[in-house]
């Protein structure tokens, strides 16, 4: 019983808080640096526009930043996790070479979510595709379903994880779009680390956001657009 009362109490508290915010517009005193008690909004769709013309071959600053932020080893072992990787492509007929980062594309219709038998793989309201490791049984169907090879399985016990990024043996993991940073109002580590600002992060649903404006004005593509997954990560100059 006390459990139910508590939920009621927290609900009332949050409603009171929301009411206080509503009657005092412009006086938003929430400290957003520590995450918000409000759930992620379905009106937002987080995404990235990656300018491949600005992405330098041989540079892996985004990969290093991701590894540092999320406590990944940097794929030194044969089975170590990899959330983002640099891909070098070459058009054999013209000889044109390109370099680009490849990671979870945060699809609107993610195949990994479709196949997950325990609903561990899910899409958050704001478009971020995540693994709920409390439910993941490590079957790795999602890894096989993903057309982008974006997911990794943790084979070995881990120690000393980042308190903001829980990771553990026996579960599948992938790029979280640095969800812990987004919830603090920061941008993903890779976008921040890119020396050429080749990764533009923002809200695809907000017509006034920098990313939306750029997508309206320059040609961008989704990788494997033919699959109709409507990815959140877009590439320019591909």
């Amino acid at each position: 019983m006390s459990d139910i009362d508590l939920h009621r109490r927290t609900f009332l508290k949050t409603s009171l808080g929301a009411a206080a915010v509503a009657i005092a517009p412009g006086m938003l005193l929430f400290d957003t640096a520590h995450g918000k008690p409000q759930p992620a909004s379905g009106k937002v769709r987080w995404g990235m526009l990656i300018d491949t013309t600005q992405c330098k071959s041989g540079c892996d600053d985004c990969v290093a930043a991701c590894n540092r932020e999320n406590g990944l080893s940097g794929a030194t072992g044969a089975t170590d996790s990899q959330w983002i990787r640099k891909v070098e492509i070459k058009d054999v007929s013209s000889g044109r070479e390109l370099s680009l980062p490849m990671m979870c594309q945060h699809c609107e219709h993610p195949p990994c979510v479709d196949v997950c038998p325990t609903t561990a793989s899910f899409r958050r309201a704001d478009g971020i595709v995540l693994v709920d490791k409390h439910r993941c049984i490590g079957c790795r169907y999602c890894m096989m379903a993903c057309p982008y090879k974006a997911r990794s399985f943790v084979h070995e016990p881990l120690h000393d994880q980042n308190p903001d990024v829980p990771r553990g043996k026996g579960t599948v993991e992938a790029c979280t779009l640095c969800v812990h940073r987004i919830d603090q109002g920061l941008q993903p580590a890779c976008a921040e680390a890119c020396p050429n600002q080749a990764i533009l992060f923002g809200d695809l649903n907000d017509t006034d956001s920098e990313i939306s404006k750029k997508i309206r004005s320059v040609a961008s593509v989704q990788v494997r657009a033919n699959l109709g997954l409507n990815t959140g990560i877009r590439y320019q100059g591909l």
Partner: protein
Amino acid sequence: MKLFASLLLCLCIPAWAAGTNAPKPDIGKGGQCVEDVQWMRKNHMHLLKHQRDEALRKGARDEKLSLKNCIECHASTKDDSVIARDDSFCVACHRYEAVKIDCFECHSGTRKSAWLQRNAK
């Protein structure tokens, strides 16, 4: 009456025994921010389980109820951890009650500030 008395005695013995060798966890900085001690002893797992789904699946991060925030105050002042020693905050009672927790197979049992200090590049 005799039966009642012996029953009472039986009930008293475990209570007395528990009082003597009950776990004495290192509560770290301690303090009360959610509910009183007795309530938390009984219900902390419900809060944590509720909070984990809210935070992960909905993105509603109520900082006060987050595991990270518990660790922030309850990690030992000696080693900044809730799981490092036999009398660490989580370990002491869970070992006594023989309830295995697997939170820390994925989650860090260390205070964030201490982790940052250790992993400063």
